């Protein structure tokens, strides 16, 4: 096994990986920027190497600095975490050429999967369903109409140079196809100076369903079931769960096989995720493959009992999978919420400041993956995700109740977080019913703002008690009731509260 691993990341994922290494008796090296000197990952590792300037390009994205740190520390492998350099083929290649094991797939696979069109073509060739579409050169109306009818309805006509919904049309039948193509072209021409359009099948009621893959370097490949990640804001997941409330055992097996086929088609090894789009009629289409450990990996760990981070290390060290597809079972249900330093009332704008107090909810089957502490400064340099909370239960309903409870005990004071927003989303009746799509937040929480109902009486009482306890002068004599019309005059000695 590796003797020493450098973790090229920060925050909760760096902490997660360091802990896996420690359990396995592997020494760890953290890298940190100037603002992360006191960060948990910096403190937890056996050695920490300063990367200097906090700007990502000068620190966590700086390939030469990180490679040099690994060499100086004598690390024999690098774990990239997620984000930063995790899906950068140049980084994986740089590790390889310096004789440092990159914990992840081959650089060529990272490169291929990073090219969305090439990835789609590869998957189509391998027999994995992809979203039917036409991205060809024949742009005359007759050819486009012919291709459109071949793809079927509803159909999305979109400008090749498009963005922000401009030059985009959803077409429901062939009567209006030609005029829709023409108007999309006109709009595209005037907005982008280019009238090339693409055709794609329009996915109604889309869900984001992904499958966890583990593959060893000898080609043994398994999937560890799905994760439902439809609840997203700004195209970023905020709540994930497994199993999905919509997927039957039959569909799970079918999608799982497709995911394994996708991984095998590119000779994938290590942990990876195949992302599918599922439409309202339960047809699924390959979207992309993430060639790394995912943020939401803990829900899979909670329901399968398998430690994905440790398997990443074992696979990278050349070990073969001992897990067989037929032996894998998923028990119960797990859910994750991502806690962000952001303001949901202001378009999820990131918030910065000092974490004046942090207190995580604990209890049976509650897992906190965090990289924060009381007193920590949240800076504008990095992703505003502070931590993740993961719960598991016998079934979905109990997981929801547990999550609502846990979020109500989750204390982060000092910066605005999305905790209240998450509570509202999970408590929504359509969420509870499992009626979710990637449009859920836009459909039900567009322009959501935190209710401005003022300070509740409980907060006022608590503040008064706090200030009274912490005031230097103790007042013993009750002040005289100055208001002769106070209702308290009429109730005599009785007061609300504890018996005297």
């Amino acid at each position, binding site marked *: 096994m590796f003797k020493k691993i450098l973790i090229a990341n920060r925050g909760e994922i760096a902490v997660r990986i360091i802990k896996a290494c420690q359990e396995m008796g592997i020494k760890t090296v953290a890298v940190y920027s100037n603002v992360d000197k006191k960060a948990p990952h910096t403190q937890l590792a056996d050695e920490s190497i300063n990367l200097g300037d906090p700007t990502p390009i000068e620190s966590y994205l700086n390939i030469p600095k990180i490679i040099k740190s690994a060499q100086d520390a004598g690390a024999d492998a690098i774990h990239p975490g997620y984000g930063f350099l995790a899906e950068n083929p140049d980084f994986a290649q740089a590790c390889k050429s310096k004789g440092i094991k990159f914990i992840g797939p081959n650089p060529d696979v990272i490169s291929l999967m990073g090219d969305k069109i090439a990835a789609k073509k590869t998957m189509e060739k391998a027999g994995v369903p992809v979203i039917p579409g036409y991205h060809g050169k024949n742009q005359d109306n007759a050819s486009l109409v012919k291709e459109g009818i071949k793809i079927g309805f509803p159909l999305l006509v979109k400008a090749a140079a498009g963005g922000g919904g401009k030059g985009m049309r959803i077409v429901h039948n062939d009567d209006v196809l030609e005029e829709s193509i023409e108007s999309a072209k006109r709009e595209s021409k005037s907005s982008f100076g280019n009238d090339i359009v693409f055709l794609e099948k329009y996915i109604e009621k889309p869900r984001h369903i992904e499958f966890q893959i583990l593959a060893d370097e000898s080609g043994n490949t398994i999937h560890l079931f799905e994760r439902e990640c439809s609840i997203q804001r700004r195209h970023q997941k905020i709540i994930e769960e497994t199993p999905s409330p919509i997927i039957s055992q039959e569909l799970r097996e079918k999608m799982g096989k497709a995911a394994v086929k996708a991984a095998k088609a590119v000779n994938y090894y290590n942990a990876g995720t195949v992302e599918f789009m599922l439409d309202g009629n339960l047809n699924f289409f390959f979207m992309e493959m993430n060639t790394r450990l995912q943020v939401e990996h803990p829900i899979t760990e909670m329901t399968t009992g398998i430690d994905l981070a440790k398997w990443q290390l074992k696979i990278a060290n050349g070990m073969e999978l001992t897990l067989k597809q037929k032996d894998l079972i998923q028990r119960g249900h797990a859910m994750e919420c991502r806690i962000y330093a952001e303001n949901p009332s202001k378009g999820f704008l990131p918030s910065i400041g000092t974490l004046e107090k942090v207190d995580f909810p604990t209890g049976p089957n509650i897992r906190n993956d965090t990289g924060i502490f009381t007193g920590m400064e949240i800076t504008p340099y990095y992703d505003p995700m502070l931590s993740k909370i993961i719960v598991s239960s016998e079934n979905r309903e109990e997981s929801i109740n547990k999550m609502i409870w846990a979020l109500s005990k989750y*204390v982060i004071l000092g910066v605005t977080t999305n905790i209240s927003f998450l509570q509202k989303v999970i408590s929504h009746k359509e969420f509870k019913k499992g009626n979710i799509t990637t449009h859920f937040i836009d459909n039900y929480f567009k322009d959501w703002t935190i209710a401005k109902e003022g300070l509740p009486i409980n907060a006022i009482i*608590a503040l008064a008690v706090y200030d009274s306890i912490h005031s230097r002068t103790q007042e013993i004599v009750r002040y005289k009731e100055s208001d002769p019309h106070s209702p308290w005059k009429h109730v005599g000695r009785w007061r609300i509260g504890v018996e005297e």
Partner: protein
Amino acid sequence: MFINYEHENHVYNVSVERRKDLFFITYDNAEYKVKAEEIKPGHLKIKLGDRTIKSVITKGKTDKFVFTDGNVFKVKNVELTGARKTKIRKEEGNLNSPISGKVVNVKIKNGDKVKKGDVLMIIEAMKMEYLIRAPFNGRVKKVNFKEEDQIEIGQNTVDIIKKVGT
């Protein structure tokens, strides 16, 4: 001691008096008698009747942060200026219930004229009756509860528009 808390451009004036672990808090014409302790720094456990309020409070550089019932509020302790006092007087018409209980009698309806001191509503809790009285002369804008309704602590019982010129 008298304290003014500012939260989202609104000032709350509160008075509190302490006798060992008992605290007498007056806010918006109601008095709350609670038993409280700071179980660890910033963590408060407060008994109010048969309810327990758990709260976490911490002081930042300029603000205080209060966590209670899963929500966080940012407040500032402020000294009242003349202008702000006027603003608060306007809020006197809000008659919040100082207890959780049952509405047993509603004496008024929307649009009624009321005189300062008139009984508006009677709430029963813990075998005691509590009278909600008009704090000034005015007209009833809205009665928020009817007889037999359950009412929670802090909920607004009646909206009254103050009569001007008396």
